[in-house]
């Protein structure tokens, strides 16, 4: 499926979705947290799209907002796409989990929770994964301060 066909298909599910192909080799789709789960389900289960392989899930701190980035690929059709969720609330960021759709997301989401502090609603087991459970703060946020372990040059 070409990028234009993908675009049309996504617009049918989420008319508010924003698209961009600049500065990236993939089609980038940005949605708000409330539309994520519905769109993700359609992308995975629709036989024409069938983005069944999630090859990367990560977070980005853009200071003004947080973002969760999902890299998706279809093992049948071969097309790839990047799904992005923009979360404006920095104090209490939350987005629905997609671990019921792609199993690998469960653990990548735990990593994003651990390092960015983004909560995933309905996640089966949301705990810190790399750091200790009593660790304070979220290290990959741009405003993270740690005077003991990070030496400012």
């Amino acid at each position: 499926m070409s990028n234009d066909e993908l675009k049309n298909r996504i617009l049918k599910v989420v008319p508010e979705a924003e698209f961009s192909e600049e500065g990236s080799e993939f089609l980038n789709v940005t949605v708000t947290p409330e539309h994520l789960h519905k769109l993700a389900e359609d992308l995975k289960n629709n036989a024409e799209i069938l983005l069944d392989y999630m090859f990367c899930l990560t977070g980005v701190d853009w200071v003004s907002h947080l973002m969760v980035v999902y890299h998706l690929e279809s093992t049948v059709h071969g097309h790839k796409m990047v799904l992005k969720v923009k979360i404006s609330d920095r104090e209490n960021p939350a987005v629905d989990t997609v671990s019921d759709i792609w199993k690998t997301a469960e653990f990548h989401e735990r990593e994003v929770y651990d390092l960015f502090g983004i909560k995933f609603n309905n996640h089966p087991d949301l705990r810190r994964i790399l750091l200790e459970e009593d660790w304070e703060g979220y290290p990959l946020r741009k405003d993270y301060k740690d005077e003991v372990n990070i030496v400012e040059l």
Partner: protein
Amino acid sequence: MSNIFSLISDKDSKGTSSATETQEYFVNMGPQHPSTHGVLRLLLTLDGEIIRKVEPHIGYIHRSIEKMCEKDSYQQIVHLTDRMDYLSCHMNNEAVCLAVEKGLQLEVPDRVKFIRTIISELTRLSSHQLWWGVMGMDLGAITTFLYGFRDREQITDIFEETCGARLTMNYNVPGGVMFDIHPNFQKRTKDFLKYFKEKLPEYDELLTGNVIFVERTKDIGYLSKEDAISFGVTGPSGRASGFACDVRKKDPYSAYDRVDFKEIIRTDCDSFGRYKVRIAEMYESLHIIEQLIDNIPEGDFKAKTKAVIKLPPGEYYQRVETARGELGVYVISDNKKSPYRVKFRSPGFSNLFALDTMAKGYKIADLVAMMSTLDLVIPDIDR
């Protein structure tokens, strides 16, 4: 965190009142267990000898490489990646270099592509040799360990002569490789190919047909194709479940589009299948090197780059096939000398979490074989 010093702790039974009352209990495997090959703790829920649940606890050697990358220049990042999957160090370096080259829209000389591909395949061979050795040892065969290391030594010697290091090579730099190949490189590699072609059938003779080995791996640790895709299990482990995930075929980089090789896919979905894929891949690696070694084009070993590299604003994603599976490097640049954000999608992280699905219902002794065939490298998981 629960007490890691108590090896066995009781758990309330589900209140079954049959004549033979059974009780589930927890066993901590690791963090210092020889078969985890590093500091990994598996919290096992057992019913007698049967595994009910495997819960991996990771992060013991988390070094926050992604955070460090946000302060470092692109040249420095390359050196950090050696410390992730140290057995695929060359491929890790290559992934970052390719991502930077993609951002700079830099076409590297053909000579570089050939050198990178040959060394990648030699690294894959040495990684698989080590895996074969320790896999045999995990299952109680000491000989394989000695054989594996004996043959691996030949490759590390070639690396040492080429770039001065045996394990963490740091041979790649953005734009090319650090030095040209040693004058002996081609001859020594060809000698090694000749030597190893005779030795590789010995591997088959020792383990593949061994009754004890086959009994311990065949039909053990089943992972269906759907699960492999859903869990993102890549590399030989994914291909043994029928998931065609070889990045060298899907998204060719360096000189992989110019060589002829087979993507090994099996449908056994078990430990034995994963073992067979790696053995077959060693033959393919030899085949790839054979095609390239006599045809390395003349030319520069490095394209010209600026001393301070700044990537144009945007996002760059580069995937490479390491010995363990698909490594993804996701770089976000904001036109500064260090990246805004770097994410390493490591193969080990995704592969490890399929262990729960694989191990459910099998015996605890089989878990060691399953972990061996997943070929975990812990620094790759923790990053």
